């Protein structure tokens, strides 16, 4: 650190990156998958596939009417109804409701109750679909990437926030270290050991640099008032709630009048919103239904703006009259919403979403190659020791093992999560928890095995296992459901997400398989080249 700026920045880059890289791999993989969390959830509920097969022929107003009719029978006394109407990324009608909280009900109990208060309608027939299996689907991966698991969400968010801050520091210091950032992007020297890893790290980092910088900063912004509370403290004192209500102006919650009044027909309200926006609302929230103070809130579907806060229109539920349109936010609040919106990318259409997904994969590769590079570099310091038959230091062994457990082990965990979704009995109690446990049991086993034997053979074993499990998912889907690739590829547009899921996991499996094959060929080549090197290689492996 006594040397120049570039050297000290290289030091900061190395250590701030290495310290958190394994957690970042989890965050990156989970976050990348979250771009398709609706599609993943849909894939994980095969009971819904049949209903989505036929293209919906009902209008948004008709589907809302269907849902309201069903809700009137199921939950006329609820304090709020939530409708998700068929839309580009959602072929079905989803409805859920909350009941007035009973006295003495804990938060957990209320949440558990809410999970059972929902139904799905087939927009073709207006009838309820088969109840889907109990799974958290893509929501689990989404929550995992900032709440972690097996701990309170607050702890998880602080840990992920610290990792994100380290990442931000690593990115900026990495850029300063680079004198030839553009040249390096076009430089790739394959099969040159450390240099190739360096080039691969540079390429994946520089290629998607704007994305990495954006996703890290915007990630911190999503929870910024928690991470940095001092501006709130000086302007609002202890009244954090006041700040939240000013920064996130929501429609005011109206208390029920406790006076029965029939709910007005929802179709005209929906059509009014549709005329104003040029597209039908995708989400409708009805508070205090069948009360004189009923409110109907229409939300515009995402896709027209960066901001994650979509405009709403609020109607009086009893009379059907338009009450207000939310006022446009100030520039600063709009900027924050746009920054937040960039992170969650609700605005992205199919192609842009795919690009975000690929950038997320590049981020994963950047973290992975960076972690590997540290091991390769550090090992060179032991070259002489190894030649004499010695062992590498504790640090190198630990990092090697953690690398295997995270880079090769995490894909296994993701694959096992999807396998568990298909193989666990549908009637199993607390099934969604069992799926999550399967994820962590698989990851834990991979990480422990890697610590016991951090060798090249272990790399190959885990990469191959991940490849087989991921690439096997389409086959698993064929054996356990009626909506396999042979059906989904030729079915209606509603089944496209299922087909795309199968194809993407197949491709990712092939990618892992290629990595395993490449490692094996490398080992063979070394064996053929020089017996002396073999001895060294085996020692390397044994080390």
């Amino acid at each position, binding site marked *: 650190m006594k040397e120049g700026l570039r050297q000290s920045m290289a030091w900061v880059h190395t250590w701030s990156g290495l310290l958190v890289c394994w957690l970042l791999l989890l965050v990156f993989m989970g976050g990348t998958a979250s771009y398709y969390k609706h599609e993943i959830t849909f894939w994980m509920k095969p009971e819904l596939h049949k209903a989505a097969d036929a293209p919906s022929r009902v209008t948004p107003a008709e589907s809302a009417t269907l849902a309201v009719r069903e809700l009137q029978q199921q939950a006329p006394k609820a304090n709020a109804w939530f409708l998700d109407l068929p839309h580009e990324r959602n072929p079905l009608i989803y409805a859920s409701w909350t009941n007035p909280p009973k006295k003495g009900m804990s938060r957990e109990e209320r949440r558990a109750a809410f999970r059972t208060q929902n139904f799905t309608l087939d927009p073709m027939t207006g009838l309820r679909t088969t109840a889907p299996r109990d799974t958290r689907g893509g929501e689990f991966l989404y929550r995992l990437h900032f709440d972690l698991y097996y701990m309170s969400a607050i702890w998880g968010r602080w840990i992920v926030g610290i990792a994100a801050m380290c990442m931000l520091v690593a990115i900026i210091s990495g850029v300063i270290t680079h004198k030839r950032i553009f040249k390096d992007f076009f430089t790739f020297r394959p099969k040159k050991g450390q240099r190739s890893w360096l080039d691969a790290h540079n390429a994946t980092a520089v290629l998607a640099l704007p994305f990495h910088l954006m996703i890290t900063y915007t990630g*911190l912004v999503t929870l910024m008032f928690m991470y940095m509370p001092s501006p709130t403290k000086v*302007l609002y004192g202890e009244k954090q709630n006041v700040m939240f209500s000013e920064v996130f102006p929501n429609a005011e919650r109206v208390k029920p009048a406790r006076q029965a009044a029939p709910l007005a027909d929802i179709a005209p309200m929906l059509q009014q919103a549709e005329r104003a926006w040029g597209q039908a609302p995708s989400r409708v929230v009805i508070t205090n239904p069948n009360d004189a103070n009923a409110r109907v809130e229409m939300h515009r579907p995402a896709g027209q703006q960066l901001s994650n806060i979509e405009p709403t229109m609020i109607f009086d539920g009893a009379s059907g009259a338009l009450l207000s349109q939310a006022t446009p936010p100030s520039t600063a*609040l709009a900027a924050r919403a746009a920054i937040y919106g960039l992170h969650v990318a609700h605005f992205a259409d199919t192609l842009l979403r795919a690009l975000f997904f690929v950038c997320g994969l590049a981020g994963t590769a950047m973290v992975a190659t960076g972690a590997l590079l540290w091991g390769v570099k550090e090992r060179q310091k032991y070259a002489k020791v190894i030649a004499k038959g010695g062992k590498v230091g504790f640090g190198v062994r630990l990092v090697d093992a953690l690398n295997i457990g995270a880079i090769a082990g995490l894909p296994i965990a993701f694959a096992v999560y999807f396998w568990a979704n298909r193989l666990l009995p549908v009637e199993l109690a607390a099934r969604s928890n069992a799926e999550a446990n399967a994820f962590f049991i698989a990851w834990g086993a991979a990480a422990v095995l890697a610590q016991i034997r951090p060798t090249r053979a272990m790399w190959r074993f885990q990469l191959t296992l991940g490849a087989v499990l991921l690439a096997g998912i389409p086959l698993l889907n064929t054996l356990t459901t009626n909506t396999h690739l042979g059906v989904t590829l030729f079915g209606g547009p509603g089944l496209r997400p299922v087909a795309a899921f199968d194809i993407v996991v197949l491709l990712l499996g092939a990618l892992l398989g290629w990595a395993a094959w490449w490692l094996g060929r490398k080992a063979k080549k070394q064996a053929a080249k020089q017996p002396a090197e073999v001895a060294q290689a085996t020692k390397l492996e044994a080390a």
Partner: protein
Amino acid sequence: MTTLTWRYRGGVAARAVAAIGGGYVLTAIASALIAIALPLSRADAVTIATLLSFVVYTCVILWVFATASALRAWIGVLAASALLGGILWLTGRLS
């Protein structure tokens, strides 16, 4: 393998504490000042100041590791915190 001297290790540890802990305190004070200084509505000021805080924190951390010695890093972080903290105290918004 070159072994690192304890002096070097101590320097790194001192800088790490100055960057992570000292940097956070300095950033918290600086963002609070920015929030007060911005001639905007409360909601806008708190949003902009909090948005900027992560940029400030990053710069402080990098400076702590870039400057010539751990001692300088500590003096810099403490002096800046004391100065900005003093101004913040004078504004009378600390409760």
